[in-house]
């Protein structure tokens, strides 16, 4: 583990350049880093333990792989030589006594061979170099140079980098090689391997990082909230790690990014820590709302008042209402006639009434201290999982807190185990077309309920059970009109949502993460969603699945600002605020941008055979993806896609060709199927509406299309041109790339006239067609059987790939 640290670190100069003594000290501190005391037995023991755990934890999910044609970066990688040297040689055959045999290859059975890597074949005897015949073959057709590393080791170096994410087979006929003693192979030897997927290229926008600013210390159990004037706050800002010489200041201004950081050397006197609920108006001193921590803080809709559930010694809480500036605190509950209780949540119902949750039930109290019971929990409930909507009108009630009398009154399918879909429950609110996927989600007795709270004490409206909500990960939109929850099944999660006014109209959020959701927050209307994972950090995404930003911070509380432009969160003892970027205008977006992401997730789900995800991503009436997708698929990627913009009466449509691949194994040859996937929008969400999966067929030795790309005309171009690029897995016979083997057709079957014959670049294995103007909607690129690789292989049939849109 020891290593010399004599490399110069230029960043130290940048940090301490203005203070030579400090720079020298920093350099010497760096050089004096203590070497760790390591028990040599520990690494292998932990590794063995991890490997045992990994066999259980890592399901066989090869994962979606990006289409190699979208990716251009790997061509510049300089991995090859080093990896050849480091590669493990795998024994591929044994020789009958005295016979020549290939005993090892650096690629045999490996599925992640670097495309730049040379292939070595080691024999058990010195080879007569003159005997190597040209019949030695690589499939897909690949030109190689043949050299010798030593008399026993043959090196095949591809003239062009191998295709990414492709299965290869090296075939050595029995008479292709002869040893110096005249021996030949006992039989034909084949070596199969696969190459790595390509590196994401520039067309794939990187997920932006959430730029978070630490605002203040926050206790680990604190809740983030937004105070008056869009000022972030924490319900318990007690310093979590006091230092001997100074205490961190919860009242530090939020204007610097390290305002949460205690510094014993600060020349500014540090105020005593403010404990309790504190808000941090930007650019102004922090404002303490209470001396004790609060369980919850909410601002009234008119912004004039703040309500706090201030936790008292012993755990009971007082509901206190203050002016927006923290002045004139007034305790409104408990009143003289009631005893106190812990409060787990509160919300404003209008500007004069506060709804709050205690272990006994849900109550309301107005600013005149008049209170009423809205809903009583059964004895034994905890109320800890109750979630109040910000408008105080709805609440999520865990199953344990739902009285059986109320539950059975709903005629919900959950209570009886009926197979009736949620959308068919007795509330009669009606299921829209968009809700059709909800038929997949049936509630169980463990799932919680959505309750509409009565305006005053009295009859409670029939609650609706939220299928899959047993996880308890539930959030309401800021307006209270949407509720979302993570429906879990084993490790997998599906994010479902429903309007609170029609909770049986359940829909799946198509772009949501599929597992590990621990925290959830919605913006005002549920169009932007923040997810918290542990471990895994934060992801902010649109309801359509576009990821707006991520952070490695692991939050215990998430809260959107009222306008949805900021996200406050508590993580690792700090209240942080991140600006939520809208979908970047600099990234070219098409009408199908979100559809592309859903398509990726769909293919990913096909590869992993994630049945719940396939169901969530499929529209009602679509072919059953789980049934028509071969179960044995190892890999998959999108070859091409085209987007048809929507019209006044119909939304956009995305049509794609995707390849599903079964890798060769042992004597089983590799197989593939090029499927057609059609996606459309329903209620603003992309779902798969059409799917056609041909039967798997042998990969064979014909050239295959790996990807199809379209470069639209440059903006403002005088002579606008569109270039269609087709990338193959095989080295092509350049003379076969012609108008007879590659052309463009309109939806009506008309051939588009290109500006010239197709071109071919052997370095990239790309053939290109250029046409004037833009491609008409529905255009397809056609690869005919006249196309030929260098070994004379032809595609068995004409193939078409959508490109126009």
């Amino acid at each position, binding site marked *: 583990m020891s290593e010399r640290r004599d490399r110069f*670190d230029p960043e130290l100069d940048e940090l301490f350049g203005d203070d030579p003594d400090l720079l020298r000290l920093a350099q010497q501190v760096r050089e004096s880093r203590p070497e760790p005391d390591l028990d040599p037995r520990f690494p292998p023991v932990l590794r063995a333990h991890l490997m045992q755990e990994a066999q259980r934890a890592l399901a066989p999910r090869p994962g979606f792989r990006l289409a190699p044609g979208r990716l251009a970066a790997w061509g510049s990688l300089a991995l090859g030589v080093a990896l050849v040297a480091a590669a493990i040689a795998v024994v591929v055959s044994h020789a009958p006594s005295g016979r020549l045999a290939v005993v090892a290859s650096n690629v045999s059975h490996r599925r992640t061979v670097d495309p730049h890597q040379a292939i070595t074949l080691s024999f058990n005897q010195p080879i007569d170099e003159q005997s190597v015949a040209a019949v030695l073959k690589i499939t897909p057709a690949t030109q190689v140079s043949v050299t010798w590393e030593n008399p026993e080791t043959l090196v095949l170096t591809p003239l062009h980098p191998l295709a990414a994410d492709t299965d290869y087979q090296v075939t050595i006929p029995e008479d292709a090689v002869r040893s110096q003693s005249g021996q030949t192979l006992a039989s034909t030897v084949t070596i199969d391997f696969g190459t790595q997927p390509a590196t994401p290229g520039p067309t794939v926008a990187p997920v932006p990082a959430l730029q978070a600013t630490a605002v203040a210390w926050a206790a680990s159990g604190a809740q983030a909230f937004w105070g008056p004037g869009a000022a972030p706050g924490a319900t318990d800002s007690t310093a979590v790690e006091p230092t001997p010489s100074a205490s961190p200041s919860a009242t530090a201004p939020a204007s610097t*990014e390290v305002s949460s950081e205690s510094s014993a050397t600060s020349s500014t006197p540090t105020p005593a820590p403010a404990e309790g609920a504190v808000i941090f108006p930007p650019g102004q001193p922090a404002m303490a709302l209470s001396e004790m921590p609060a369980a919850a803080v909410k601002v009234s809709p008119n912004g004039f008042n703040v309500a706090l559930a201030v936790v008292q010694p012993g755990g009971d809480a007082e509901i206190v209402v203050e002016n927006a500036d923290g002045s004139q605190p007034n305790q409104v509950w408990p009143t003289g006639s009631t005893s106190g209780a812990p409060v787990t949540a509160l919300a404003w119902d209008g500007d004069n009434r506060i709804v709050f949750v205690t272990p006994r039930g849900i109550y309301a109290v107005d600013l005149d201290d008049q209170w009423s019971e809205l809903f009583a929990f059964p004895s034994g409930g905890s109320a800890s999982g109750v979630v109040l909507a910000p408008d105080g009108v709805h609440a999520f009630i865990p199953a344990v807190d739902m009285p059986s009398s109320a539950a059975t009154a709903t005629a919900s399918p959950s209570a009886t185990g009926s197979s009736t879909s949620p959308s068919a429950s007795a509330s009669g609110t009606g299921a829209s077309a968009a809700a059709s996927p909800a038929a997949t989600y049936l509630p169980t007795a463990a799932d919680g309920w959505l309750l509409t709270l009565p305006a005053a004490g009295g009859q409670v409206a029939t609650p609706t059970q939220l299928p899959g909500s047993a996880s308890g990960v539930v959030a309401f939109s800021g307006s209270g009109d949407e509720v979302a929850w993570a429906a879990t099944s084993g490790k997998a999660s599906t994010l479902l949502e429903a309007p609170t006014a029609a909770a049986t109209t359940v829909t799946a959020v198509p772009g949501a993460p599929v597992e590990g959701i621990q925290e959830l927050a919605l913006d005002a209307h549920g169009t932007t969603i923040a997810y918290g994972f542990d471990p895994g950090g934060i992801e902010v995404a649109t309801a359509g699945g576009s990821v707006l930003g*991520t952070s490695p911070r692991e939050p215990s509380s998430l809260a959107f600002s009222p306008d949805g432009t900021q996200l406050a969160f508590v993580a690792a003892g700090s209240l942080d605020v991140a600006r939520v970027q809208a979908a970047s205008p600099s990234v070219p977006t098409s009408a199908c941008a979100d559809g592309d992401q859903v398509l990726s997730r769909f293919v990913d789900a096909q590869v992993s055979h994630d049945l719940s995800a396939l169901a969530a991503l499929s529209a009602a009436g679509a072919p059953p993806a789980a049934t028509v997708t071969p179960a044995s698929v190892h890999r998959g990627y999108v070859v091409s896609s085209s987007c048809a913009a929507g019209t006044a009466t119909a939304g956009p449509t995305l049509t794609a060709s995707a390849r599903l691949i079964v890798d060769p194994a042992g004597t089983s040859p590799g197989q593939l199927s090029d499927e057609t996937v059609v996606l459309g929008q329903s209620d603003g969400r992309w779902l798969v509406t059409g799917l056609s999966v041909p039967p798997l067929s042998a990969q064979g030795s014909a050239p295959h299309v790996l990807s199809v790309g379209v470069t639209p005309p440059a903006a403002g171009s005088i002579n606008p041109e569109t270039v269609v690029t087709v990338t193959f897995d095989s080295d092509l016979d350049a003379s076969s790339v012609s108008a007879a083997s590659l052309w463009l057709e309109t939806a009506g079957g008309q051939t588009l006239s290109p500006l010239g014959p197709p071109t071919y670049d052997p370095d990239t294995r790309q053939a290109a067609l250029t046409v004037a103007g833009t491609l008409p909607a529905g255009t397809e690129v056609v690869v005919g059987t006249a196309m030929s690789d260098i070994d004379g292989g032809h595609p068995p049939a004409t193939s078409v790939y959508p490109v126009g849109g």
Partner: protein
Amino acid sequence: MTLPRAYEDQLVERARSDADAFGELYDHYFGQIYRFAYSRTRDRDAAEEVTQEVFMKALRAMPRYRPSGHPFSSWLYQISANAIADHFRQQRPQSSLDAAVEIVDPARPVAERVVESAEAARVWAAIDSLPEQQRTAMTLKLGEDLKLAQIGEIMGKSEGAVKLLVHRGMVTVRKRLGVDAVAGEAL
């Protein structure tokens, strides 16, 4: 040694479902993570405990890991920083620097004294006494040689904020070693 980025990306992708690939990641990053854990805890048992927790958490989260454009190691360091913070929360009250402040020759510049091993231990003990975030930033910069930008990614801060943390931390270390110890003050 740093893995080539493209290779690491492929390895991480495979590790979402392939135990062997995860094992390769472990083989590559064990040393860094253990060293970081040890630098912060100065205790073999604690470093082992933290390292085990880091890799177990990473293993469980691999299927949903999404590359952020930063090295995979940033994520491991982030998990490590959280695990170390948890470790110290459970260990409170923390030891002060008092025990490390022994007889020193105040006439010699601090930087000169650092090269001696006892002094080196003292300096790192001074770093241990810094506030959590300064300590993390200092250890990642001076102990792990990470770039400021990567430290920012790990800590969820801007590069500028990390600079300030390291600078403040270094000033505090100098002050404590060069001034406080001489004056015999408890640090």
